[in-house]
């Protein structure tokens, strides 16, 4: 990855002018078309065996998240236990993709995951002054290296939206490159755009390419603190970006929608988008994640319904 960070896939040379030149070649997003296509794909009916597969796949893609000021050690530990075994009475339910917490909870989460048999589940840490991204570069670097030292396997960094919107693209680019260097081989890097603040689909596309060129392993829609978050058209634009980026570079970048995906129906809609836009190669936790907290209970309840033949009750799944 460090190699990529120095030559930027050979597409740009790291200068402001080359970056602007590359991004200016991107076509604009057909807003009406993107929204119509996303809405059309959302009507796909996924039933029986396909639904069962989709539920299990979605569970394995969940980045089980708690990002509250009121988070405690106990809450994070409970979340880790749930991550390993989302339905405690059913061993057939897969574990989630990762546990996503604030910087200071990384060590607690890592320790507890190892304790309860979740050695293979990485801890993702939100970083670079999440959720606003308003801090000096030195603080952002320290924030990231702290998390990695505490055992984070994935870093979810936020971009500086103010800089992006005011046209300082190279500033945003260099920030991502620096954090990429801090991550090195130790941590996967996810770059959060906060699409709700980027205003247009054109900006989402531009930010996607900018982050991918700078060395992101994943591009992520939102922090979950701003609405709208992971709307289907935004995810569609990002999936198109990773698909086209693969055609250019033969490198597959992952996508992580986060925020607003609360039930099984929403999650399955996302999987349909992945399959239809990026392709079935992306239907793996290595390339697609869903940032969520309440979603997992609904997935588990839908799974119970499929197993038992009757509707489940929230009283029978864990309280978040």
């Amino acid at each position, binding site marked *: 990855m460090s190699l990529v960070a120095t030559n930027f896939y050979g597409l740009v040379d790291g200068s402001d002018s080359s970056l602007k030149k590359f991004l200016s070649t991107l076509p604009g997003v057909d807003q009406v078309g993107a929204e119509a296509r996303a809405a059309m794909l959302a009507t796909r009916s996924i039933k029986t065996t396909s639904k069962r597969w989709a539920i299990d796949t979605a569970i394995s893609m969940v980045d089980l998240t708690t990002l509250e000021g009121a988070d405690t050690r106990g809450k994070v530990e409970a979340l880790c236990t749930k991550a390993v075994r989302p339905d405690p009475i059913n061993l057939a339910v897969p574990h989630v993709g990762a546990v996503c917490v604030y910087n200071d909870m990384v060590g607690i989460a890592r320790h507890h995951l190892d304790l309860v048999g979740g050695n293979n589940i990485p801890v993702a840490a939100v970083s670079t002054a999440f959720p606003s991204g308003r801090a000096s570069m030195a603080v952002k670097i320290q924030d990231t290296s702290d998390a990695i030292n505490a055992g984070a396997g994935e870093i979810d960094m936020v971009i500086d939206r103010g800089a992006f919107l005011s046209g300082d693209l190279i500033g945003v680019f260099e920030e991502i490159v620096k954090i990429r260097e801090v991550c090195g081989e130790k941590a996967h890097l996810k770059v959060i755009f906060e699409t709700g603040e980027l205003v247009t689909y054109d900006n989402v596309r531009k930010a996607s390419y900018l982050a991918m060129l700078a060395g992101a392993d994943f591009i992520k829609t939102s922090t979950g603190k701003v609405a709208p978050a992971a709307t289907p058209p935004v995810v569609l634009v990002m999936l198109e970006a990773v698909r086209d980026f693969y055609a250019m570079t033969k490198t597959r970048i992952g996508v992580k929608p986060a925020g607003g995906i609360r039930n099984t129906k929403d999650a399955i809609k996302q999987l349909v988008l992945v399959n239809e836009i990026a392709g079935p190669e992306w239907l793996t936790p290595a390339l697609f994640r869903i940032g969520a907290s309440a979603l997992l209970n609904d997935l588990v309840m839908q799974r119970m319904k499929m197993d038992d033949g009757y*509707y*489940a*009750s929230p009283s029978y799944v864990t309280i978040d």
Partner: protein
Amino acid sequence: MSNRIDIKKTYKLYIGGAFPRTESGRTYEVKSSKGVFVANPCLASRKDLKDAVVAARSAYPGWNKATAYNKGQIFYRIAEMLEGRRSQFVDEIILLTGVTKLKAEKEVSESIDRLVWYAGWSDKLSALAGSTNPVAGPYYNFTIPESMGVVGVIAPEAPSLLGLIDAIAPVIVSGNTCIALASSKAPLPAITFAEVLATSDLPGGVINILTGKSSELAPWFASHMDIDGLDISGVPTKLRGELRTAGAENLKRISSFSAASPDRILAFMEAKTVWHPIGN
């Protein structure tokens, strides 16, 4: 006015305080007592029931916490709104069942009076079913009746309005929320009643009304893990055994009744016992 095009009413479901169509897109024909087509109400599916349970469950904490006084006031308000639309209910009952005007008016009057009657019960339940129990120790020991949670109601085929109100009112007066399946032959008064509820300060989701076939939906009521009780007064006797079996799997309380009575309220309540030191 003769060349004016009729504006026909679309009969929809009542879930979470809104009037959605069934997610299934299905409807069925309702005919008048003379066999003439009247309307195409929704043929609700099990997924509509699932949505209604979610609405009822989320409305439960708020409604359960409302004071007995407030619940009684809201009941009285429902009765007032019903009174104001009396003629519409009378017309619908006559159209669908073919009873005389006198009989239809009697049914509506009884429905209104029944609501007022149950309104009065809201603040008398703890006196009726609660108690101070003698215990061997320096403690007060109280038993207090409390609501159960979400209760399903299969309303009888007839009388369509009174039967529905007779089943719903005792369930919610104690603080439960409910999902009611209306009479399938005469569902129009139930949907019009939903319009009354929507304008009477009753929080959305406390009463949810579905229209459809009880043969299709009743088993889903019985097996649903998140419905705590079920009133099967509207289910024919020979079909009740199957529902009781399905409900036993999830420890659902299943009851049926033939008349208005405070027992109907207590059937869907739990007893909570509290110990409190007497001191010296």
